[in-house]
């Protein structure tokens, strides 16, 4: 394992020291491993808390700031935070208007956020993201994973909260984004969890994993490596099969890198995705290209589509000022 780290057990704590040093406008609670907006809590504003295992950076800590999250609870690598952390985050952002929990749909995340919400002394509403079409959704399963759409929920709900909407209104917007968004990812390589020390799975030079999540878990199927045009199709087709994206105010198309794929490849993939959407009669109104929700050093990418309407467009365009997403401010 080759990483820019000291002891594997210290990765998170030391990275948080770096976050604190690099971003004077953030406040880091090292005890609880929570990244706060420097001015949290904001009186009268709905507080936005997200969190999850680490290793997905910039998610979530890179999205803390005006117009997006008020706090991010950082679990160990790929391990959801414990209730204490989430509770500390919740208390720290409580400005009297209630707190929204944005939770990715994983058993661990859901349970730990639930326990924290039970312990919180403020009104908490949780919105669970579950946009990954690689996972079959049924009564008997835990449902879909929350992946790329989480970034969009955090941005859009963040804008809604910043504009003074109530907790139930912000939660409604967050749920709408999740309902209108779908994602699908693939991996060219596995990733190496620092504490594990070797790649989570082995992938031969000529194979890729399709339908992966963001925890280095193997995907749904293993197929031969293919040209980008075909890989784009493997991602776009199941999304379009699952949800209607034509009409309305177009879509936001988000090509996300898994951490180890260079930007030039992501732009190339964006071109392929954009081409496929054009063919399918879908209008791309907004785009996002980059590594925003990652799996450590995994090479690969995911595609997220979000169907836009006037409200979502306005909230997406609203100013945001975080270390990883910033405009208009």
């Amino acid at each position, binding site marked *: 394992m080759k990483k820019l780290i000291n002891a594997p057990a210290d990765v998170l704590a030391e990275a948080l020291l770096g976050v604190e040093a690099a971003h004077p406008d953030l406040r880091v609670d090292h005890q609880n491993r929570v990244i706060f907006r420097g001015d949290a809590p904001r009186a009268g504003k709905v507080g936005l808390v997200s969190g999850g*295992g680490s290793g997905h950076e910039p998610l979530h800590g890179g999205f803390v700031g005006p117009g997006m999250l008020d706090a991010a609870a950082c*679990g*160990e*690598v*790929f*391990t*959801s*935070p*414990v*209730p*204490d952390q989430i509770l500390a985050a919740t208390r720290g952002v409580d400005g009297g208007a209630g707190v929204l929990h944005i939770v990715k749909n*994983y*058993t*661990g995340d859901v*349970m*730990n956020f*639930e*326990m924290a919400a039970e312990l919180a002394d403020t009104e908490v509403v949780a919105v669970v993201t579950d946009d990954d079409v*690689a*996972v*079959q959704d049924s009564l*008997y*399963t*835990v449902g879909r*994973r929350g992946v790329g759409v989480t970034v969009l929920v955090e941005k859009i709900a963040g804008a809604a909260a910043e504009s003074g909407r109530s907790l139930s209104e912000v939660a409604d917007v967050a749920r709408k984004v999740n309902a209108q968004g779908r994602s699908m990812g693939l991996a060219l390589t596995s990733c190496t*969890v620092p*504490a*594990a020390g070797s790649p*989570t*799975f082995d992938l031969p030079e000529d194979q890729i994993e399709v339908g992966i*999540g963001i*925890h*280095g*878990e*193997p995907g*749904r199927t293993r197929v031969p490596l293919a040209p980008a045009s075909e890989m784009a199709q493997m991602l776009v087709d199941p999304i379009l099969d699952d949800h209607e994206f034509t009409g309305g105010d177009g879509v936001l198309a988000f090509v996300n890198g898994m951490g180890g794929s260079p930007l030039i490849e992501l732009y190339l993939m964006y071109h392929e995705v954009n081409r496929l959407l054009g063919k399918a009669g879908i209008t791309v109104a907004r785009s996002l290209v980059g590594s925003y929700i990652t799996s450590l050093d995994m090479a690969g990418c995911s595609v997220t589509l979000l169907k836009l309407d006037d409200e979502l467009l306005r909230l997406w365009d609203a100013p945001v000022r975080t270390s990883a997403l910033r405009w208009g401010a």
Partner: protein
Amino acid sequence: MSAVVDAGAIRSWLGLFAEEVGSHVDLLTQLDAAIGDADHGTNLDRGMKAVSGALATADAEPGVLLKTTGMTLVSTVGGASGPLYGTFFLRMAGSASDADSLDPDAFAAALRAGLEGVVARGRAQAGDKTMFDALAPACDALDEALASGATFDDALRAASVAADAGRDATTPMLARKGRASYLGERSVGHQDPGATSAALLVATAARALSTGASP
């Protein structure tokens, strides 16, 4: 020597479990790498090390030790197994209440309460390929053995055998809960990491709590 589970017994059980988890970190993590996210060993080891630390200072009856264990696991493990094992011990603590010691039936009842906590939290059913599939057969075997008049030692051994069998039975299962469920058919053929740690929990109970009396 009469079969009671007192504070000392609980301590040695949890100490032994912490040790076993510590010496199986890699196994548990490798199993999790195959169908999960390669952290179950590290997660549980971090938690049980914290439990050992917390119990070192706690001088109290079984219920308090179990509650401390549950709260410490909830606060240090994270992931799915943190709330699940945490709730398991918190419910055991509730069942044990403030008794100075538990007789075999009381211990079996506490274990059952723990199992019900796992179900309440995670809603797993038999065959979902989770820790439930090791814990539930263990509870059943313990109850049955005690009901049929077996000694506590024998009953614990039966529970441990059942937990191991339940753990082994997870291999051919298709996961329907937890992270492994995302793999669908590809989860088949791999032993569940949580069932593996749960079998260790029952095995260490059998070793730590047996009275040592010959059958």
